[in-house]
Protein backbone atom coordinates (compact mmCIF):
# COMPACT_ATOMS: atom_id res chain seq x y z
CA UNK A 1 0.00 0.00 0.00
CA UNK A 2 2.01 2.89 -1.24
CA UNK A 3 -0.99 5.23 -1.02
CA UNK A 4 -1.59 5.14 2.72
CA UNK A 5 1.20 4.65 5.21
CA UNK A 6 -1.03 3.24 7.98
CA UNK A 7 -1.62 -0.09 6.15
CA UNK A 8 1.12 -2.40 7.29
CA UNK A 9 1.69 -5.47 5.15
CA UNK A 10 3.11 -8.38 7.10
CA UNK A 11 4.89 -11.03 5.05
CA UNK A 12 4.28 -14.80 4.89
CA UNK A 13 7.44 -15.51 6.93
CA UNK A 14 6.00 -13.82 10.02
CA UNK A 15 2.69 -15.64 9.56
CA UNK A 16 4.48 -18.99 9.21
CA UNK A 17 6.37 -18.30 12.47
CA UNK A 18 3.07 -17.47 14.19
CA UNK A 19 1.52 -20.71 12.88
CA UNK A 20 4.55 -22.60 14.24
CA UNK A 21 4.01 -20.98 17.64
CA UNK A 22 0.31 -21.86 17.59
CA UNK A 23 1.00 -25.52 16.73
CA UNK A 24 3.68 -25.71 19.45
CA UNK A 25 1.25 -24.29 22.03
CA UNK A 26 -1.38 -26.84 20.89
CA UNK A 27 1.09 -29.66 21.59
CA UNK A 28 1.92 -28.09 24.97
CA UNK A 29 -1.76 -27.79 25.94
CA UNK A 30 -2.43 -31.45 25.04
CA UNK A 31 0.69 -32.50 26.97
CA UNK A 32 -0.29 -30.34 29.97
CA UNK A 33 -3.69 -32.08 30.13
CA UNK A 34 -1.88 -35.29 31.15
CA UNK A 35 -0.12 -33.49 34.03
CA UNK A 36 -1.86 -32.76 37.30
CA UNK A 37 -1.69 -29.19 38.59
CA UNK A 38 -4.49 -29.83 41.08
CA UNK A 39 -7.00 -26.99 41.16
CA UNK A 40 -4.87 -25.05 38.65
CA UNK A 41 -5.61 -27.46 35.74
CA UNK A 42 -8.27 -25.26 34.14
CA UNK A 43 -6.22 -22.11 34.83
CA UNK A 44 -3.18 -23.59 33.04
CA UNK A 45 -5.35 -24.68 30.06
CA UNK A 46 -6.96 -21.22 29.81
CA UNK A 47 -3.57 -19.51 30.13
CA UNK A 48 -2.17 -21.46 27.17
CA UNK A 49 -5.40 -20.84 25.21
CA UNK A 50 -5.07 -17.11 25.92
CA UNK A 51 -1.48 -17.11 24.63
CA UNK A 52 -2.73 -18.72 21.41
CA UNK A 53 -5.63 -16.27 21.27
CA UNK A 54 -3.21 -13.35 21.67
CA UNK A 55 -1.09 -14.64 18.77
CA UNK A 56 -4.17 -14.94 16.53
CA UNK A 57 -5.52 -11.51 17.50
CA UNK A 58 -2.20 -9.63 17.32
CA UNK A 59 -0.82 -11.15 14.10
CA UNK A 60 -3.59 -12.81 12.06
CA UNK A 61 -6.18 -10.15 12.95
CA UNK A 62 -3.58 -7.36 12.63
CA UNK A 63 -4.39 -5.82 16.02
CA UNK A 64 -0.65 -5.19 16.42
CA UNK A 65 -0.98 -2.30 13.95
CA UNK A 66 -4.58 -1.45 14.75
CA UNK A 67 -4.79 0.19 18.20
CA UNK A 68 -8.27 1.61 17.63
CA UNK A 69 -9.94 -1.75 16.97
CA UNK A 70 -7.76 -3.38 19.65
CA UNK A 71 -9.37 -1.08 22.22
CA UNK A 72 -12.83 -2.08 20.96
CA UNK A 73 -11.97 -5.78 21.18
CA UNK A 74 -10.48 -5.34 24.69
CA UNK A 75 -13.68 -3.56 25.76
CA UNK A 76 -15.63 -6.65 24.66
CA UNK A 77 -13.28 -8.86 26.70
CA UNK A 78 -13.66 -6.48 29.67
CA UNK A 79 -17.44 -6.88 29.61
CA UNK A 80 -17.04 -10.65 29.27
CA UNK A 81 -14.80 -10.58 32.37
CA UNK A 82 -17.40 -8.53 34.30
CA UNK A 83 -20.08 -11.01 33.23
CA UNK A 84 -17.98 -13.99 34.36
CA UNK A 85 -16.56 -12.57 37.62
CA UNK A 86 -19.82 -11.11 38.91
CA UNK A 87 -21.63 -14.38 38.13
CA UNK A 88 -18.94 -16.31 40.02
CA UNK A 89 -19.34 -13.92 43.01
CA UNK A 90 -23.00 -14.84 43.10
CA UNK A 91 -22.43 -18.57 42.71
CA UNK A 92 -19.58 -18.77 45.24
CA UNK A 93 -21.33 -16.76 47.97
CA UNK A 94 -24.59 -18.66 47.71
CA UNK A 95 -25.14 -21.56 50.10
CA UNK A 96 -27.42 -24.47 49.36
CA UNK A 97 -30.36 -24.09 51.72
CA UNK A 98 -30.41 -27.11 53.99
CA UNK A 99 -31.77 -27.19 57.56
CA UNK A 100 -28.25 -27.89 58.83
CA UNK A 101 -26.89 -24.78 57.11
CA UNK A 102 -29.30 -22.38 58.78
CA UNK A 103 -27.81 -20.22 61.48
CA UNK A 104 -29.74 -19.75 64.69
CA UNK A 105 -31.56 -16.40 64.74
CA UNK A 106 -29.98 -13.66 66.85
CA UNK A 107 -31.99 -13.49 70.06
CA UNK A 108 -30.24 -10.75 71.98
CA UNK A 109 -27.39 -8.31 71.76
CA UNK A 110 -24.90 -8.68 74.57
CA UNK A 111 -25.16 -5.83 77.05
CA UNK A 112 -28.45 -4.52 75.68
CA UNK A 113 -31.53 -4.32 77.89
CA UNK A 114 -34.09 -7.05 77.24
CA UNK A 115 -37.55 -6.41 75.81
CA UNK A 116 -36.62 -3.11 74.26
CA UNK A 117 -36.12 -2.48 70.55
CA UNK A 118 -32.46 -2.10 69.70
CA UNK A 119 -30.67 -0.25 66.95
CA UNK A 120 -29.14 -3.03 64.82
CA UNK A 121 -25.99 -1.07 64.08
CA UNK A 122 -25.01 -0.41 67.68
CA UNK A 123 -26.95 -2.98 69.70
CA UNK A 124 -28.12 -0.15 71.99
CA UNK A 125 -31.78 0.65 72.70
CA UNK A 126 -33.55 2.94 70.27
CA UNK A 127 -33.51 6.49 71.61
CA UNK A 128 -30.05 6.22 73.13
CA UNK A 129 -28.00 9.16 71.92
CA UNK A 130 -25.14 8.34 69.61
CA UNK A 131 -21.71 8.16 71.15
CA UNK A 132 -19.82 11.39 70.53
Amino acid sequence: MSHSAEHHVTGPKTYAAVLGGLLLLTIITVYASYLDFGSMNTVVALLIASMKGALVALFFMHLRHDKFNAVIFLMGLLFLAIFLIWTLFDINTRVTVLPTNLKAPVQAFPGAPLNKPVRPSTGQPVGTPHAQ
Partner: protein
Amino acid sequence: MTTATHTGHAGDGNSKFLQHHFREMGQQFEAAKLGMWLFLVTEVLLFGGLFVGYGIMHARHPEAFMAAHHHLDKVMGAVNTVVLLISSFTMVLAVWAAQTSRRTLCILFLILTLLCAGVFLVVKYFEYSHKFHDGLLPGKYYTHQGDTVPGQFMFFSFYFMMTGLHGIHVLIGMIAILWILVRAIRGDFSSQYYSPVDITGLYWHLVDLIWIYVFPLMYLIS
Protein backbone atom coordinates in the same frame (compact mmCIF):
# COMPACT_ATOMS: atom_id res chain seq x y z
CA MET B 1 -21.80 1.35 -7.07
CA THR B 2 -21.66 1.94 -10.79
CA THR B 3 -18.87 1.38 -13.22
CA ALA B 4 -19.43 4.88 -14.55
CA THR B 5 -17.48 6.32 -11.64
CA HIS B 6 -14.46 4.23 -12.58
CA THR B 7 -12.93 6.62 -15.02
CA GLY B 8 -14.16 9.64 -13.09
CA HIS B 9 -12.01 8.74 -10.09
CA ALA B 10 -9.04 7.43 -12.00
CA GLY B 11 -5.85 9.01 -10.84
CA ASP B 12 -6.93 10.06 -7.34
CA GLY B 13 -6.21 6.63 -5.80
CA ASN B 14 -9.88 5.58 -5.63
CA SER B 15 -11.24 2.51 -7.40
CA LYS B 16 -14.67 1.79 -8.85
CA PHE B 17 -15.53 0.11 -5.56
CA LEU B 18 -15.61 3.40 -3.64
CA GLN B 19 -19.18 3.85 -2.47
CA HIS B 20 -20.58 7.33 -2.89
CA HIS B 21 -20.95 8.00 0.85
CA PHE B 22 -17.20 7.61 1.52
CA ARG B 23 -14.59 10.22 0.77
CA GLU B 24 -11.79 7.86 -0.22
CA MET B 25 -10.78 4.17 -0.12
CA GLY B 26 -8.93 4.39 3.21
CA GLN B 27 -11.99 5.80 4.95
CA GLN B 28 -14.21 3.10 3.42
CA PHE B 29 -11.79 0.38 4.55
CA GLU B 30 -11.55 1.68 8.12
CA ALA B 31 -15.34 1.98 8.39
CA ALA B 32 -15.87 -1.59 7.15
CA LYS B 33 -13.25 -2.89 9.58
CA LEU B 34 -14.76 -1.00 12.52
CA GLY B 35 -18.17 -2.50 11.70
CA MET B 36 -16.71 -5.99 11.63
CA TRP B 37 -14.92 -5.53 14.95
CA LEU B 38 -18.11 -4.31 16.62
CA PHE B 39 -19.87 -7.41 15.28
CA LEU B 40 -17.04 -9.63 16.55
CA VAL B 41 -17.47 -8.15 20.05
CA THR B 42 -21.14 -9.20 19.99
CA GLU B 43 -19.99 -12.67 18.89
CA VAL B 44 -17.57 -12.86 21.83
CA LEU B 45 -20.43 -12.01 24.19
CA LEU B 46 -22.76 -14.51 22.48
CA PHE B 47 -20.28 -17.34 23.06
CA GLY B 48 -19.38 -15.75 26.42
CA GLY B 49 -22.83 -16.63 27.78
CA LEU B 50 -22.23 -20.29 26.95
CA PHE B 51 -18.70 -20.21 28.41
CA VAL B 52 -19.97 -18.68 31.68
CA GLY B 53 -22.75 -21.27 31.90
CA TYR B 54 -20.21 -24.01 31.21
CA GLY B 55 -17.90 -22.62 33.92
CA ILE B 56 -20.63 -22.59 36.53
CA MET B 57 -21.92 -26.10 35.81
CA HIS B 58 -18.37 -27.45 35.59
CA ALA B 59 -17.52 -25.89 38.98
CA ARG B 60 -20.65 -27.33 40.58
CA HIS B 61 -20.51 -30.83 39.04
CA PRO B 62 -16.81 -31.57 38.42
CA GLU B 63 -17.24 -35.36 38.66
CA ALA B 64 -20.00 -35.47 36.03
CA PHE B 65 -18.00 -33.27 33.61
CA MET B 66 -14.84 -35.26 34.24
CA ALA B 67 -16.60 -38.58 33.52
CA ALA B 68 -18.49 -37.26 30.50
CA HIS B 69 -15.47 -35.77 28.73
CA HIS B 70 -13.93 -39.26 28.44
CA HIS B 71 -16.51 -39.92 25.69
CA LEU B 72 -14.77 -37.29 23.54
CA ASP B 73 -11.90 -38.25 21.27
CA LYS B 74 -8.85 -36.10 22.14
CA VAL B 75 -7.17 -37.02 18.84
CA MET B 76 -10.12 -35.84 16.74
CA GLY B 77 -10.30 -32.64 18.78
CA ALA B 78 -6.56 -32.02 18.35
CA VAL B 79 -6.75 -32.73 14.59
CA ASN B 80 -9.58 -30.21 14.26
CA THR B 81 -7.59 -27.66 16.25
CA VAL B 82 -4.60 -28.05 13.92
CA VAL B 83 -6.84 -27.95 10.81
CA LEU B 84 -8.48 -24.74 11.99
CA LEU B 85 -5.13 -23.13 12.85
CA ILE B 86 -3.82 -23.97 9.39
CA SER B 87 -7.00 -22.57 7.82
CA SER B 88 -6.41 -19.33 9.74
CA PHE B 89 -2.88 -19.28 8.35
CA THR B 90 -4.05 -19.80 4.75
CA MET B 91 -6.74 -17.15 5.26
CA VAL B 92 -4.22 -14.56 6.44
CA LEU B 93 -2.05 -15.43 3.43
CA ALA B 94 -5.08 -14.86 1.17
CA VAL B 95 -5.42 -11.40 2.76
CA TRP B 96 -1.70 -10.80 2.19
CA ALA B 97 -2.00 -11.93 -1.45
CA ALA B 98 -4.92 -9.51 -1.95
CA GLN B 99 -2.97 -6.71 -0.25
CA THR B 100 -0.08 -7.24 -2.64
CA SER B 101 -2.28 -7.76 -5.75
CA ARG B 102 -1.33 -11.46 -6.20
CA ARG B 103 -4.61 -12.70 -7.67
CA THR B 104 -3.68 -16.35 -8.35
CA LEU B 105 -2.17 -16.83 -4.90
CA CYS B 106 -5.22 -15.22 -3.30
CA ILE B 107 -7.52 -17.68 -5.13
CA LEU B 108 -5.28 -20.62 -4.15
CA PHE B 109 -5.19 -19.69 -0.45
CA LEU B 110 -8.95 -19.12 -0.34
CA ILE B 111 -9.50 -22.61 -1.82
CA LEU B 112 -7.09 -24.08 0.77
CA THR B 113 -9.00 -22.30 3.55
CA LEU B 114 -12.27 -23.73 2.24
CA LEU B 115 -10.72 -27.23 2.13
CA CYS B 116 -9.55 -26.95 5.74
CA ALA B 117 -13.01 -25.79 6.80
CA GLY B 118 -14.46 -28.81 4.96
CA VAL B 119 -12.08 -31.19 6.75
CA PHE B 120 -13.09 -29.62 10.07
CA LEU B 121 -16.78 -30.25 9.38
CA VAL B 122 -16.15 -33.84 8.18
CA VAL B 123 -14.26 -34.66 11.42
CA LYS B 124 -17.09 -32.99 13.37
CA TYR B 125 -19.61 -35.15 11.46
CA PHE B 126 -17.80 -38.36 12.53
CA GLU B 127 -17.65 -37.14 16.13
CA TYR B 128 -21.35 -36.24 16.16
CA SER B 129 -22.51 -39.48 14.54
CA HIS B 130 -20.51 -41.47 17.11
CA LYS B 131 -22.26 -39.58 19.92
CA PHE B 132 -25.71 -39.97 18.31
CA HIS B 133 -25.04 -43.70 18.07
CA ASP B 134 -24.06 -43.96 21.75
CA GLY B 135 -27.02 -41.86 22.92
CA LEU B 136 -24.71 -39.15 24.27
CA LEU B 137 -27.23 -36.40 23.64
CA PRO B 138 -28.21 -33.26 25.54
CA GLY B 139 -30.81 -33.10 28.30
CA LYS B 140 -33.72 -35.51 28.16
CA TYR B 141 -32.41 -37.14 24.96
CA TYR B 142 -29.45 -38.60 26.83
CA THR B 143 -29.92 -42.39 26.61
CA HIS B 144 -26.39 -43.68 27.27
CA GLN B 145 -26.42 -46.76 29.53
CA GLY B 146 -24.01 -47.89 32.23
CA ASP B 147 -22.93 -44.53 33.67
CA THR B 148 -21.41 -44.64 37.15
CA VAL B 149 -21.50 -40.86 37.63
CA PRO B 150 -24.92 -39.13 37.36
CA GLY B 151 -25.59 -35.87 35.53
CA GLN B 152 -23.41 -36.40 32.46
CA PHE B 153 -26.20 -35.16 30.18
CA MET B 154 -25.32 -31.62 31.37
CA PHE B 155 -21.88 -31.83 29.81
CA PHE B 156 -23.40 -32.91 26.50
CA SER B 157 -25.92 -30.06 26.61
CA PHE B 158 -22.98 -27.65 26.67
CA TYR B 159 -20.97 -29.74 24.21
CA PHE B 160 -23.66 -29.69 21.54
CA MET B 161 -24.67 -26.07 22.13
CA MET B 162 -21.08 -24.76 21.99
CA THR B 163 -19.68 -26.95 19.21
CA GLY B 164 -22.99 -26.71 17.32
CA LEU B 165 -23.04 -22.89 17.42
CA HIS B 166 -19.37 -22.92 16.47
CA GLY B 167 -20.11 -25.32 13.59
CA ILE B 168 -22.82 -22.97 12.30
CA HIS B 169 -20.22 -20.19 12.38
CA VAL B 170 -17.83 -22.37 10.35
CA LEU B 171 -20.60 -22.91 7.77
CA ILE B 172 -21.36 -19.18 7.56
CA GLY B 173 -17.63 -18.51 7.28
CA MET B 174 -17.40 -20.98 4.39
CA ILE B 175 -20.24 -19.19 2.57
CA ALA B 176 -18.45 -15.84 3.10
CA ILE B 177 -15.14 -17.27 1.84
CA LEU B 178 -16.91 -18.76 -1.18
CA TRP B 179 -18.32 -15.31 -2.00
CA ILE B 180 -14.83 -13.78 -1.62
CA LEU B 181 -13.44 -16.56 -3.84
CA VAL B 182 -15.94 -15.76 -6.61
CA ARG B 183 -15.01 -12.08 -6.42
CA ALA B 184 -11.28 -12.91 -6.38
CA ILE B 185 -11.70 -15.02 -9.54
CA ARG B 186 -13.61 -12.10 -11.09
CA GLY B 187 -10.53 -9.99 -10.33
CA ASP B 188 -12.11 -7.47 -7.96
CA PHE B 189 -9.28 -7.31 -5.44
CA SER B 190 -5.98 -5.49 -5.53
CA SER B 191 -3.83 -3.43 -3.21
CA GLN B 192 -6.36 -0.65 -3.91
CA TYR B 193 -9.36 -2.61 -2.69
CA TYR B 194 -9.29 -5.69 -0.48
CA SER B 195 -11.56 -4.86 2.47
CA PRO B 196 -13.98 -7.78 1.83
CA VAL B 197 -11.05 -10.24 2.03
CA ASP B 198 -9.75 -8.51 5.16
CA ILE B 199 -13.03 -8.46 7.11
CA THR B 200 -13.96 -12.02 6.05
CA GLY B 201 -10.52 -12.97 7.38
CA LEU B 202 -11.29 -11.23 10.68
CA TYR B 203 -14.50 -13.27 11.01
CA TRP B 204 -12.68 -16.50 10.16
CA HIS B 205 -9.97 -15.80 12.75
CA LEU B 206 -12.63 -15.24 15.41
CA VAL B 207 -14.12 -18.66 14.61
CA ASP B 208 -10.60 -20.05 15.13
CA LEU B 209 -10.17 -18.01 18.32
CA ILE B 210 -13.37 -19.45 19.83
CA TRP B 211 -12.29 -23.00 18.99
CA ILE B 212 -8.94 -22.34 20.74
CA TYR B 213 -10.96 -21.98 23.98
CA VAL B 214 -13.54 -24.70 23.25
CA PHE B 215 -10.87 -27.36 22.64
CA PRO B 216 -9.15 -27.40 26.10
CA LEU B 217 -12.44 -26.81 27.97
CA MET B 218 -14.25 -29.69 26.26
CA TYR B 219 -11.60 -32.24 25.33
CA LEU B 220 -8.82 -31.71 27.86
CA ILE B 221 -10.48 -31.63 31.30
CA SER B 222 -8.18 -33.14 33.89
